[in-house]
């Protein structure tokens, strides 16, 4: 791994580099396994975006280029109607940026886990962060404590997520003209996220936040640039915090954690 001073994983058992590599590759496979049930949903969403690009009269090359390097489904979907009316590039840029803002919050959570990596690695893995991979990573490694195997696990989640997305999206690009638009296949992605979310709301503080975020998202769904979603995340976090605070102040029983 890296020689950098801060928070490289400690190596208390003095493992050889071969042993460390073995642990990392085992963790990679564990990461792939942990994320695998969600991949069908991710691929279904990719499929929807692929179809949408072809139906917007992208050439195959343009659609492939977009899916392979933009890698941001909701930003791509939002850009399509703007492209259709020939909106200025900077408008499309700002729209894409707005829609991606929740990832700034995610990166604040996940980046400290990997502050020991080299710059190129940070840029690559940061870029590959996905919503669902984020949740699986946090479930396995809730604290920032450096640990051997963490990097492998994250790579397993991110790589499989990226592959599932691209396979779905590229299938959509090539099958796009054969598949009717109202097929509703994207709902598989919604169901996948539902399954990821359900075990999380067993913790009361998270449930409170999820209800708050869901309510705000519902009331603001017509806002432009998915700004309502960003507000929903912030309000949800505040609800969860308020609940924990209230437990701690009014209750001698330990609060939730």
């Amino acid at each position, binding site marked *: 791994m890296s020689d950098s001073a801060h928070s490289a994983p400690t190596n208390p058992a003095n493992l050889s580099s071969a042993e460390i590599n073995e642990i990392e590759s085992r963790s990679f496979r564990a990461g792939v396994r942990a994320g695998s049930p969600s991949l069908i949903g991710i691929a279904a969403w990719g499929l929807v975006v692929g179809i949408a690009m072809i139906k917007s009269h992208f050439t195959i090359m343009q659609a492939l280029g977009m899916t392979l390097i933009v890698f*941001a489904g909701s930003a791509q979907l939002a850009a399509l109607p703007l492209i259709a009316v020939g909106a200025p590039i900077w408008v499309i840029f700002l729209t894409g940026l707005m829609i991606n803002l*929740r990832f700034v919050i995610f990166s604040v959570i996940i980046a400290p886990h990997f502050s020991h990596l080299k710059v190129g690695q940070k840029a690559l893995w940061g870029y590959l962060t996905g919503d669902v991979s984020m949740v699986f990573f946090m479930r396995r490694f809730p604290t920032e404590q450096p640990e051997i195997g963490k990097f492998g696990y994250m790579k397993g989640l991110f790589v499989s997520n990226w592959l599932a997305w691209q396979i779905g999206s590229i299938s959509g690009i090539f099958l796009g003209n054969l598949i009717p638009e109202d097929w509703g296949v994207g709902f598989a992605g919604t169901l996948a996220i539902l399954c990821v979310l359900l075990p999380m709301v067993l913790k009361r503080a998270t449930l409170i936040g999820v209800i708050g975020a869901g309510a705000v998202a519902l009331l603001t769904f017509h806002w432009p640039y998915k700004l309502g979603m960003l507000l929903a995340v912030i309000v949800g976090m505040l609800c969860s915090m308020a609940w924990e605070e209230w437990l701690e102040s009014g209750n001698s029983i330990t609060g939730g954690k």
Partner: protein
Amino acid sequence: MDDLYIWSVIAVLTLGTFLSRATFWLVGHHITIPKRINEALRFAPACALAAIIVPDLLIHHGKIEASLANPQLISGIVASVIFLATRSMLTTIILGMAVFSLVRLFV
């Protein structure tokens, strides 16, 4: 469609993906996040997922529809029960999609 325009769009959207996701990885160690904000951020992924799917489940034909006339809501409820009973994501997605398609076809 104008090729240069599309590729420019692709370039700026890629920049947007990169800026939002990777910036903090690259500069984050220079910034100290207050402890309370860090605690609040633990809840962000769950809240984001909720913000994605709650409208998917409850918005039907452009408005909030919390009734049995909403196929997403019906299949979402059925899928939740299936998932809590089986803990299998794959089973839930397949059966949930089956319910979703049937309700849309026949109701």
